[in-house]
């Protein structure tokens, strides 16, 4: 009787110890496990920003949850498939399955963006396209900045690919940044995506001071002529012509521009309403969930809690600011060239971030003169910015891909 009780107690003890040691809690004290704890903290902060502050919640909630789940020790969500011959030694984690598809998500999102975008204001005022080009200056400025930083601090392990991916943050275009990073600097997908989407959410904070500093009150008060109406035929021709042209110039942009214009054609041709509806709603949200959790899950302590992440965050915001300044300054040039017919504020909308950047231009303009309606004028550079940053990404992919 005594023996049974003793065996029972010692077995129970062993089992409890085993249970404790194999639980996730114990892993935090095992080797570099504490880093996971910090990453969980980062995930919770991101969740707070998404839910409490409503910073891009549709993206930041999936990203934070991906980060949380993959950093809970032993969850195995990001496990790679390990095989020995035909026997599976380690099953592939769910989030790793999503992660392995990351290359196609940006293109599918671009299709959805195309199906939601009205290129009418751009077709009505083709000159505004140039503002979308000028606002890509920040991309190249930050690219150079990253190279200089990499030369100054060799411990950053800067590569051309990473420098290019950091620069693309200045394009204010999430899918483009993700596509570029998956091809040129895969390890840094998480910090770059987090930086890109956080700064996009901060457009209304980052942009106005720069816009006001670079323009005079008179310039901000300029009222622009009403846009001409655009025929349906032009709207149908636009995506077809642009895809042929841009992809011939830069074949590397095909996955982005091709799908963007395909989505837009679905919307404008008026005979594929169901497809346009699916691309811009259901499919877009499905992709957002998978891409968000995959990006978040790729935020592992080894690559996220590093000096590079700080550099990425810093250069990202510089890229954004220079892009805004580039757009506004080019707007001023156009203002002079057209004898005051262009309000330079719409240049700031040349960073993509559709339609937030255009709304910021409208808001800053209406602060000076409540009867000034810049929104539609700002949409031209805004959607041109999407094309511009995709082309800039194509340039980087061509050189470093």
């Amino acid at each position, binding site marked *: 009787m005594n023996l049974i009780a003793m065996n029972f107690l010692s077995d129970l003890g062993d089992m409890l110890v085993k249970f404790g040691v194999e639980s996730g809690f114990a892993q935090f004290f095992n080797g570099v496990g504490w880093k996971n704890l910090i990453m969980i903290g980062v995930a919770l902060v991101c969740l707070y920003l998404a839910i409490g502050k409503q910073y891009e919640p549709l993206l930041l909630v999936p990203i934070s949850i991906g980060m949380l789940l993959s950093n809970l020790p032993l969850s195995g969500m990001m496990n790679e498939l390990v095989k020995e011959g035909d026997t599976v030694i380690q099953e592939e984690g769910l989030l790793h399955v999503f992660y392995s598809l990351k290359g196609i998500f940006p293109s599918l999102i671009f299709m959805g963006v195309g199906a*939601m975008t*009205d290129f*009418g204001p*751009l*077709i*009505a005022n*083709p*000159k505004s*396209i*140039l503002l*979308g*080009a000028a606002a*890509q*200056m920040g*991309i*190249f400025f930050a*690219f*150079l900045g990253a*190279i*200089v930083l*990499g*030369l100054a601090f*060799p*411990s*950053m*392990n*800067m*590569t*051309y*690919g990473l*420098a290019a991916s950091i620069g693309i943050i200045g394009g204010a275009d999430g899918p483009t940044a993700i596509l570029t990073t998956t091809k040129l*600097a895969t390890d840094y997908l998480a910090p770059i995506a987090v930086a890109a989407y956080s700064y996009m959410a901060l457009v209304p904070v980052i942009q106005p001071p720069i816009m006001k500093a670079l323009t005079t009150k008179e310039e901000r008060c300029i009222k622009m002529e*009403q846009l001409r*109406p*655009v*025929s349906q*035929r*032009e709207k149908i*021709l*636009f995506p077809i*012509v*642009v895809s042929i*042209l*841009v992809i011939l*110039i*830069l074949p590397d942009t095909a996955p982005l521009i091709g799908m963007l214009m395909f989505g837009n054609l679905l919307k404008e041709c008026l005979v594929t309403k169901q497809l346009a509806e699916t691309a811009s709603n259901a499919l877009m949200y499905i992709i957002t969930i998978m891409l968000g959790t995959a990006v978040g899950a790729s935020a592992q302590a080894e690559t996220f809690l590093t000096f590079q992440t700080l550099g990425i965050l810093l250069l990202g915001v510089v890229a954004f600011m220079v892009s805004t300044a580039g757009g506004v300054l080019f707007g001023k040039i156009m203002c002079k060239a057209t004898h005051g017919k262009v309000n330079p504020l719409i240049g700031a909308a040349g960073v993509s971030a559709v339609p937030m950047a255009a709304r910021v231009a409208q808001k800053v303009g209406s602060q000076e003169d*409540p*009867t000034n*309606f810049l*929104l539609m004028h700002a949409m031209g550079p805004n959607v*041109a910015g999407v*094309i*511009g940053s995709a*082309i*800039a990404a194509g*340039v*980087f992919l061509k*050189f*470093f*891909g």
Partner: protein
Amino acid sequence: MMNTVVLEASGRLADRLVTEDGWLGALGQGLGVTVAGLVIVFAALLIIAALISVFARLAEGKQKPLPEIEPAAVPEPAAPVTQVEETVDEEELVAVLTAAVAACMDRPADGLVVRSYRRVGGNGRSWTGR
């Protein structure tokens, strides 16, 4: 122009720094890509702008003149409040209507108040664009 910029795929700058290229080499390559990139972005968008201007001119020839602003969109100040059909983006719509009326009547917008609006006819061209 592009042939002068030859780069190894994701060559590490830190490594290059101590090897053949050195500081200036890496910086030079970066500058090369920057200049090439800006030129390509501007050139591509310029070509698109030029093409659009061309088919704008083609379209102009065929375009029928659009009807002027529909009178029903301009409510009499004393008109009874009609039902508001769309609730989305109402503020924006009111702002646009105010601007349209102001432009049409050549009067400053701060003297105008949009009390109600109602869509006339259903030709499918929504004001809100989508």
